[in-house]
């Protein structure tokens, strides 16, 4: 007799003797991730609002002493209509059959891929979106299970490569936050200052930095691969720092996810004139 035949029969989907509301956690994760995916997709396809550049706030409002805020969904901006654009307005090679070009198309796959392959997110969306399992000790909808050892989920092993790119993004977002401290007057002169948007952008860079630097792959690469860390003291110290962040990886994953969306919303609302950025001071 096969060993599996000696085991208790599989439970049906959702079958459990847990009396608690086990479905609440995956439901909230599902709603949270879905809301972000829907909003970020919409935001990526809508860079323009009544002819104004909705992902950037500053230059067009420069006569009002506007700041220099760039949405994190559009940074770095290779092609676009803001002064941040590195190579002009729009790429000539962009195929006509695709939707109108948006700078977000070229870069969102990097933070998206980093989060999609993140060890925390994997566990969370396997539960919330694929019900595999929907929660601990609750029956599943499918009998077959391949795990991450064969296609397609074997691709999750690419996570460390997204990490390398995500670390570059932390630097870029920090630079954007620095640019957000400079306000342009009517004469085009730059003034250092702090507005609400500046604080939002700084916090965005900090939260994404804390999430990225707590990555499990980074923890392995900086020292986790060593069995004797005392032979490499600098690796040991870095490993301990990353471990410290890693213990709160889920927290930083959620905070940074919410905040990056909120940063885009704030800059979009400023750029489209719906709200006005409050400036605490500028010199």
């Amino acid at each position, binding site marked *: 007799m096969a*060993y*599996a035949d*000696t*085991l*208790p029969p*599989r*439970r049906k989907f959702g079958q*459990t*003797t*847990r*009396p*608690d509301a086990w479905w609440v956690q995956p439901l909230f994760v599902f709603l949270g991730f879905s809301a972000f995916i829907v909003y970020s997709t919409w935001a990526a396809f809508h860079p323009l609002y009544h002819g104004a550049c909705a992902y950037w706030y500053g230059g067009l409002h420069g006569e009002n002493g506007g700041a220099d805020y760039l949405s994190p969904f559009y940074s770095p901006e290779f092609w676009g209509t803001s002064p941040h654009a590195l190579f002009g307005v729009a790429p000539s090679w962009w195929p006509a059959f695709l939707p109108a070009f948006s700078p977000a198309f070229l870069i969102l796959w990097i933070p998206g891929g980093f989060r999609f392959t993140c*060890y*925390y997110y*994997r*566990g969370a969306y*396997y*539960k919330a979106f694929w019900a*595999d*399992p929907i929660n*601990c*000790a609750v*029956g*599943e909808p499918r*009998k*077959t*299970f391949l*795990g*991450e*050892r*064969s296609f397609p*989920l*074997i691709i999750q*092993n*690419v*996570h*460390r*490569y997204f990490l390398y790119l995500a670390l570059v993004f932390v630097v870029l977002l920090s630079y954007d936050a620095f640019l957000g401290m400079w306000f342009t007057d009517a004469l085009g002169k730059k003034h250092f200052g702090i507005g609400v948007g500046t604080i939002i952008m700084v916090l965005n860079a900090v939260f994404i930095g804390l999430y990225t630097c707590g990555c*499990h*792959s980074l*923890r*392995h*690469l900086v020292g*986790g*691969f060593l*069995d*004797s*860390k*005392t032979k490499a003291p600098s690796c*040991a110290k870095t490993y301990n720092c990353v471990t410290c962040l*890693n*213990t709160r*990886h889920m927290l930083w994953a959620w905070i940074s996810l919410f905040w990056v969306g909120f940063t885009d919303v704030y800059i979009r609302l400023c750029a489209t004139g719906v709200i006005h950025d409050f400036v605490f001071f500028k010199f």
Partner: protein
Amino acid sequence: MNKTVTFRIWRTDSNGGGKLVDYTTEITEGLVVLDVIHKIQATQANDLACRWNCKAGKCGSCSAEVNGMPKLMCMTRMDTLNTDKPITIEPMRAFPSIRDLATDVSWNFRVKTKIKKFKPRPPDAPDGTWRMQQEDVDRVQEFRKCIECFLCQDVCHVLRDHHKHEEFIGPRFLVYTAALEMHPLDTEDRLPELKQSQGIGFCNITKCCTKVCPEHITITDNAIIPLKERVVDEYYDPLGWLWKKIRPQG
């Protein structure tokens, strides 16, 4: 304060099946679930089978499912449960039933024999001893806390729901492998087996094993994911291969 509580306990029948049977009993302050099981065994169901030993959360014998979640009965205080509703007590579902709450966990011991043993480097001193820094063994000492209650194996859906016992060793033995693989003296290579016959790729990081561990071992983050990363180093990272080729040896 005394209170009358209903316990819904899994009882096997002679056909190999079973059903939940209600027992109502009075509980007092300070009891754990195992105390109540013993009381029911003594007063209402003398033939109720239940495995236990230390009653201190260290032998790992009294593993069961209390209200659907794998727990040690001896460490589950009654005041942590809602006693207004019946409390369900079942055997672990990832292993064959023997009788009532007792399960046959011998599969775990067979799995353990297949994992490559500790293979230390040559001794550091002429007297045949080794030298290690405490900091180097701190990481693996967490894994040594395991009491082999197999609650993590029970909650793991790869074993519990998908019955991959032939292809996956489960969280307990990934922790065991991590303790050996990350040991500063060990020289054995267990990565080929981890990837192939021991099926580390089946783990999809649900962290249920970490959630139920009575010793609070951070199974997923500290054992399984680091092992997955070592497997990535060896089999899925072309830049890593290149680095190994060109890095200075020493």
